[in-house]
């Protein structure tokens, strides 16, 4: 059932450029960027229990690294994107190594400070980054939106697949055990700090890659990518789709992104609305809205099939 559902979803996604063109395709591409960010953030927050506020900043690290490598050093775009992802991973490694050996909110605090300082840096280093005006970036594939869309879709599928495989591997089993009982895992030989760091670096690299994609699809990078509000948007998308599910949070991102377009008229109220929504979700159904909906659907279906059975009798 699940597989069927996934297949239909993928087919729909692949057919999208034949249905929508122009502006809505562009919206979908940005949606894919957010979907990669939201699903990798959800893996971190929902499966590992690390709450990082630097995910948007890591996307900015990836975006600026990739952009500047292409502009100043004439790197080919794919290579620059990979380098951007690597740069985000390095920052993730440094922050994680500093904070992950301690329990509690140290990582959340440090990542928040990092993302704000990084935004200040991007704004202040005008010669390098053009400050808050943003840096004009060469487009990938000559800006062909259809191909950009497919590249984005590929990125999203690759991210979700890789992260699911990671969760099913030895690393995933250890992460699960650590989440159940940290001391228990440590006294059975699990190097908890190391594996948490691994998860943090992997997801940071995903964010960096998404950032690189964004840069070369939109053609402009600005410090806005690294703002705390942007981080709030990613959080809202993940929580909306369900923190404990990678697919769910990716869908949550796409849903909120399309909702954003419908809310164009309320542009400035957008984040207040999403914030309020997330507060309600956290209070009433912490597992997220989409999983809750699918649960409801399941019970409905079950009731229906039970009724059918009864009729057969």
């Amino acid at each position, binding site marked *: 059932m699940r597989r069927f559902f996934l297949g239909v979803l993928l087919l729909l996604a692949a057919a999208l450029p034949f249905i929508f063109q122009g502006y809505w395709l562009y919206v979908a591409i940005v949606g894919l960027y957010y979907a990669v960010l939201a699903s990798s953030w959800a893996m971190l927050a929902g499966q590992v229990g690390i709450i990082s506020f630097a995910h948007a900043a890591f996307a900015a690290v990836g975006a600026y690294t990739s952009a500047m490598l292409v502009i100043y050093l004439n790197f080919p775009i794919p290579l620059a994107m990979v380098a951007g992802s690597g740069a985000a991973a390095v920052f993730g490694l440094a922050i994680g190594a500093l904070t992950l050996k301690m329990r509690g909110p140290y990582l959340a605090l440090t990542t928040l400070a990092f993302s704000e300082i990084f935004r200040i840096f991007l704004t202040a280093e005008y010669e390098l980054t053009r400050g808050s005006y943003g840096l004009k970036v060469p487009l990938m594939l000559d800006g062909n939106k259809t191909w950009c869309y497919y590249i984005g879709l590929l990125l999203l599928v690759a991210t979700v697949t890789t992260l699911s495989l990671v969760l099913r591997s030895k690393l995933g089993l250890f992460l699960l055990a650590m989440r159940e009982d940290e001391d228990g895992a440590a*006294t*059975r030989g699990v190097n908890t700090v190391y594996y948490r760091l691994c998860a943090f670096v992997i997801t940071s690299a995903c964010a960096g890659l998404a950032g690189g994609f964004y840069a070369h699809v939109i053609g402009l990078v600005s410090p806005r990518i690294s703002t705390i509000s942007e981080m709030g948007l990613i959080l809202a998308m993940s929580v909306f789709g369900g923190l404990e599910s990678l697919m769910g949070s990716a869908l949550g991102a796409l849903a909120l992104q399309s909702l954003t377009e419908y809310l164009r008229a309320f542009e400035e109220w957008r984040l207040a609305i999403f914030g309020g929504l997330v507060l309600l979700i956290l209070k009433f159904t912490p597992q997220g809205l989409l999983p809750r909906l699918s649960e409801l659907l399941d019970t409905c279906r079950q009731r229906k099939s039970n009724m059918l059975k009864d009729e057969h009798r």
Partner: protein
Amino acid sequence: MLELKNVVKNFGGLQALSGVSVRFAMGEFVGLIGPNGSGKTTLLSCISGLYRPSEGSIQLDGREISRLGPHRIYRCGIGRTFQISKVFARLTVLQNLYIPAMTVAELDRTGMQQRAVEILRALKLDQLAEAPAERLSGGQRKLLEIGMVMMNTPRFLLLDEPFGGVHPVLKNQLEEYLKDLHLSGKSIILVSHEMSSVFRICERLVVLDRGALVTDGPPHEVRADQRVVNAYLGGKHAA
């Protein structure tokens, strides 16, 4: 040999261990006893690396281990269980056993599966291999924890109240299992309130009271020691 020298552990203003020095030789079966709050569990946590001693040293075969993290200490061959079992409730019994085995690249996949099956059979848990650990009873969790430690080949086993909440039938079985382990050359340090079991199976008893060592010797001597009686009676008769 595991040697503790003058181990002190403070929690804020509270001194849980005030300078404990004790040696455990290879192959010994030692009971660690004492009234509630005497520091037995704290001592185990210091050895297993969950707590870092405030002062003093802990050496395994002459190598200082008191600064190592818990996973490193486990890999040195010191495994422990907990008073309130730490099993991974949402994982299956088998997965629980695989986790410690996978942290040490000692066994290949088939070796790991064979070892797991052997252990489950020895602990009479083989019917529950695929069940999530949250379905186990308290006593079964205690057994599973010992099984997890046995997945690798530890030299020292630190067992915290392994008989607590265990059904009497299971308890006899567990006693036999521990005796077998001891005969096969494992060193066991057993913390327990079940005096009858402790006196029956341990070769040597170490008594703690209020964070300090009271006495250390074979069970019959300890049983006759007035200081031990005093410790358990709450110091009313202490000099």
